[in-house]
């Protein structure tokens, strides 16, 4: 049902539309990635420091803020991309009828949806870049390797943006996004090795964490920011890529089913 031949460079025009609206409120858009890491590092670095001491991870010891910093970026990538293609895309689709308007032009549905996903990934990568700068000020990251976080954020953004748009294709109402957030986003945020190494989890819980795309993104971010990781990098990259492609296909399929009647 997906028309692959209807995908062309024109999807960048839709990307540009989102970029133009983003620019209008860029100050607000940049505030979260600017302040969020400061809050987390302050809370965990100052408040938790006495309780935690050092974290053993990947055969080395790290201060808790240093261990946490790459995971904060990965979690922000997930949130930026996922919320963009769920709530924001749903508003464009349902309330603003933006896609209906676009479908009267030489754009195909596939191009519009691909642009939504790529846009969400771009937004996630921009947020990651800002956080990278802020966290570097605390001296928590290895340079220049940490710059690789930006392409990783883009890949992760595609994965989370795609699954977000898939949910947009199937939820009956906007309130229903609570469900994937409660069952998918929140557990991932807590159990993907973000706040503690997955190697600390009991044996039965590990496969669950390994199935989370956020886990792989967190691991890859730690690898480039700290030089240590608990996974094999290319397997994690492969998992994210397969996840991204799989849910992009599902998103295109369900959005076509939802919109084209």
């Amino acid at each position: 049902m997906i028309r692959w031949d209807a995908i062309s460079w024109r999807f960048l025009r839709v990307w540009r539309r989102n970029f133009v609206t983003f620019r209008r409120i860029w100050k607000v858009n940049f505030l979260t990635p600017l302040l969020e890491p400061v809050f987390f590092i302050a809370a965990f670095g100052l408040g938790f420091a006495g309780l935690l001491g050092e974290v053993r991870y990947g055969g080395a010891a790290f201060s808790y803020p240093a261990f946490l910093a790459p995971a904060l970026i990965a979690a922000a990538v997930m949130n930026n991309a996922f919320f963009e293609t769920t709530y924001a895309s749903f508003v464009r689709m349902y309330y603003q009828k933006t896609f209906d308007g676009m479908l009267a032009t030489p754009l195909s549905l596939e191009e519009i949806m691909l642009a939504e996903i790529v846009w969400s990934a771009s937004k996630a990568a921009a947020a990651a870049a800002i956080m990278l700068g802020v966290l570097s000020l605390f001296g928590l990251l290895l340079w220049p390797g940490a710059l690789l976080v930006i392409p990783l954020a883009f890949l992760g953004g595609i994965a989370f943006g795609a699954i977000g748009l898939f949910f947009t294709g199937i939820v009956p109402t906007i309130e229903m996004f609570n469900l994937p957030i409660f069952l998918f986003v929140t557990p991932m945020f807590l159990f993907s090795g973000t706040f503690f190494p997955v190697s600390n989890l009991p044996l039965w819980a590990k496969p669950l964490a390994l199935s989370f795309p956020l886990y792989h993104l967190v691991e890859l971010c730690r690898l480039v920011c700290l030089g240590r990781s608990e996974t094999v990098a290319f397997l994690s990259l492969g998992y994210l890529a397969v996840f991204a492609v799989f849910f992009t296909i599902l998103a295109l399929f369900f959005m076509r089913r939802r919109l084209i009647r």
Partner: protein
Amino acid sequence: MSLQAPILEVDGLRKVFRGRTAVDGVSFRVAAGECFGLLGPNGAGKTTTIRMLYGFSPPTAGTVRLFGMDLGRDWRRIRARIGVCQQDNTLDPDLSVEENLLVFAGYFAIGRREAAARAAELLEFFALTPRARSRVMDLSGGMIRRLILARALVNRPDLLILDEPTTGLDPQSRHQVWDRLEKLKASGLSAILTTHYMEEAARLCDRLVIVDRGRILVEGRPGELIRKHVGRQVVEIGGPDGALREYLKEQGLPHDDLGERILLYTAGDDGRVAAVREHFCLRRCTFRDATLEDVFLRLTGRELRE
């Protein structure tokens, strides 16, 4: 393509939604430079038909050809040459009035400088220049409608598709929209229009079809349809009595009995109508010209459609 070749050819168009037939075998032609109307009560299948014409909905059966090209195959080239004014407000509330035109021009791969020139021209034409930087949310209903029209023209279309362009507008705004549409028509732009305002159809359409329950009931020029299906004049008789009903039946005069009111249709100089006027118009009686609305109501019935 010669001037006489149809710009739009629709053949046996059908649309079935979950077992319900919304459009049931519709065929028509629109010539270049013509304004063609699609009239019908709510749920007649107008919007469904329109959506199939620009490739939004895939037809269950039938073909649509625009500018000699098949819509199924050449949809992208066709959409580059049409302008669609949808029934819903699909403007971008996140963007300003001018940005709406510029971003939309981008979807047609129109260059930035060219887009800026066209946007300025269209804002001027639709009297929106002073509001170029306003947010769409701050516009009145009439301005929103004009901006939607302006946006539909940004690619300089060869065919304008208008789905209820004046629904929900106040009379001033409606007349302003009509005025602009008449100017566009005079410039030679072809258009296809759906409406349930008969005055709008009579004023703008060269030719029209009345559709109901997914089928075309009649096709023709507004004036011809009025003469053929109603006549020239209508006598509205309030509070009719049994004697009048008897007389009308006896004489076989075309009329509609609405209970509290009888509508008597006449081609003009008919002695029997004169007799009715003389003998039965003792109380409330109105003599007026027949309109497209009479045709519409005679053909589609008077019961409510919701």
